[in-house]
C-alpha cells in the first residue's frame, strides 16, 4: 500500500544525511542516511540499544547531531523557525505523560496551553481522541492509575490531538495485548489516510511493522543495514537482517 492519494497533502518530507551522534565517546549513530516521503509510513526496526530512540530524539529536536543534517521539507531542522513551522509529535517509549495532570488534561494539553480551542471544545476533542484509542471515560484518572499499555495509548491520543504533519512513534505497541496493538496499528494507518501525516514508527513488533509499513529500515549499531519495501526487506541478503527478522519469528 504505497501512498494512497492523501486527502490533504499535509505530511512533510524528511531527509536525514550522514547523521552521527556519540555520547561520552560511545558512538550511537554512525552515519545514517534515509528519506521519508510526505504521507509515508516508515518503520524502523532494530535490536535493543541500536540507537532507534536516539534517532527519533534527533528528528524532533531533543538532541543535536554531532555531524550530518536533518531536513524537513528541505530545510535544516536546526535553522531558526523551522521547528515551529511544522506540527510534529512524538509518542515516547515510556509514554512520558505528565504525572501531575489527569489523563484528560494530558491529552488536551497542547490545545489548552496554546489556546487553540475554547475549553468546551478541548474537552470534546479529548474525549473523542481517548475513545479512538479505546480509553473512553478515563479523562479524570491520574496517569499513576493506568497500566503501562493504557499510558501508551493515552500518549498516542495526546499526539493525535496535535494533528501533526510528522509523527514519531517509539514502540507504540510494546506494552499492548494483541487486540490493542491492532487498534493502534489501525489508528496509525487511519491517521495517515485522514490527514496524510508522515509517520515514523520504531518497533520490534513484526506484525505491526509489516502490517502498516510503506517502507522498512533495519538499523543495527547505529547504521542502516537494510531499507526498502516490506517485501524487499524480507528478501534482503544481509544475514544480520535475516537473523533479526527470523528471531522475531521464533519469539512469536
Amino acid at each position, binding site marked *: 500500500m504505497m501512498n494512497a492519494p492523501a486527502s490533504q497533502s499535509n505530511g512533510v518530507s524528511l531527509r536525514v544525511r550522514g547523521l552521527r551522534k556519540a555520547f561520552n565517546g560511545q558512538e550511537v549513530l554512525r552515519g545514517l542516511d534515509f528519506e521519508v516521503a510526505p504521507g509515508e509510513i516508515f518503520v524502523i526496526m532494530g535490536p535493543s540499544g541500536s540507537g532507534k530512540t536516539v534517532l527519533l*530524539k534527533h528528528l*524532533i*529536536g*531533543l538532541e543535536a547531531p554531532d555531524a550530518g543534517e536533518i531536513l524537513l521539507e528541505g530545510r535544516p531542522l536546526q535553522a531558526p523557525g523551522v*521547528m*515551529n513551522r511544522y506540527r*510534529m*509529535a*512524538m509518542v*515516547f517509549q*515510556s509514554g*512520558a*505523560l*505528565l*504525572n*501531575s495532570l489527569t489523563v484528560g488534561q494530558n491529552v488536551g*494539553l*497542547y490545545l489548552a*496551553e*496554546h*489556546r487553540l480551542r475554547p475549553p468546551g471544545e478541548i474537552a470534546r476533542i479529548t474525549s473523542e481522541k481517548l475513545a479512538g484509542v479505546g480509553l473512553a471515560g478515563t479523562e479524570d484518572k491520574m496517569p499513576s492509575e493506568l497500566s503501562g499499555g493504557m499510558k501508551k495509548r493515552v500518549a498516542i491520543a495526546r499526539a493525535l490531538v*496535535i494533528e501533526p504533519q510528522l509523527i514519531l512513534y517509539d514502540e507504540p505497541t510494546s506494552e499492548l495485548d494483541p487486540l490493542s496493538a491492532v487498534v493502534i496499528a489501525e489508528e496509525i494507518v487511519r491517521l495517515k489516510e485522514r490527514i496524510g501525516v508522515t509517520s515514523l514508527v520504531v518497533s520490534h513488533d513484526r506484525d505491526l511493522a509489516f502490517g502498516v509499513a510503506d517502507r522498512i529500515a533495519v538499523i543495527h549499531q547505529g547504521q542502516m543495514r537494510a531499507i526498502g519495501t516490506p517485501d524487499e526487506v524480507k528478501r534482503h541478503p544481509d544475514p544480520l537482517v535475516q537473523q533479526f527478522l527470523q528471531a522475531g519469528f521464533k519469539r512469536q
Partner: protein
Amino acid sequence: MFQNIGELVVLFGRTLAALPLVWRQRQKILDQFFEIGVASLLMVCILSFFIGGVMALQTGPLLVERGLGSYVGAIVGYSIAKELAPVLMAVLIAGRIGSAMTAEIGSMRVYQEIDALRTMNINPVHFLVLPRLTALAVALPMLVTIAIVVGWMGGALVATANARIAVSFEAFFHALRSAVDLLDVLNGVFKSFMFALIIGMISCHQGLITRGGPRGIGRSVTKAVVNSIVLIVISDYFLTRILLK
C-alpha cells in the same frame, strides 16, 4: 557549587522575559500559591512563635537584671522583623517547598515529561518555572509578615509569663513600637522577597538539570536546599549592608 551561577542568571532572565505571561498562567500560580500556603502556614506559625519566645527568654533576664526591662520588646521586635523571621522562614521554605519543587521538576526531567513538553512546543520555563517563582515571590513575603506578627506575640507572651522577665504585654509592645517602625518591617519583608527569588530559581534550576534516575533526583534536591541556604545567608549580609540606614 557556584559553577552554575551563569546558568542560573540566564534562567532568571528567561523567567523575567516570560513575566507578561503571568496572567495566562494564573491558574497554575494560584495552585502553587495555595500548595505553598497549605504546606507551610502552620509550620511558619509554630516556628516563629517559638523563635519570638526564645528571643525573649534569652534577652529578657539579662536586660531586666540591668534595669533595662523596657527594652525587651524593642530588641525582640527589631531582631525578629529585620533578621530572624525573614532568614529562618526562608530556610524553612527552602527545605519544605524548594526541595519539593526540585524533586517534582527533577522527576519530570528524568521521566522525560519535560522532553514531552518540548515536543509539544510548550516552554518549560513558562509552564514550570514561571508559576512556581511567581507564587513563591508572593507567598514568602506574606508568610514572613505573618511570622513577624506571630513572633512578636510569642516574645510578648514569654516576656509576660516568665517570672524572671515579667514585662507586661503593654510595656512589651510599647517598647516595640518605639523601636520598630513600618519601614523596618518592610525591610524584612523585602529581604524575604529576594530570598524567595533565590529559592525559586535555585530549586527550579536544579530540577531542570537533573540527570540519571531517582538517585539523580536525590542529589539535585540536596544540592538545591544546601545551595539555597548558603546563598540566603550570604545575600542576607549584603542586603542588610545595602538596606542599612
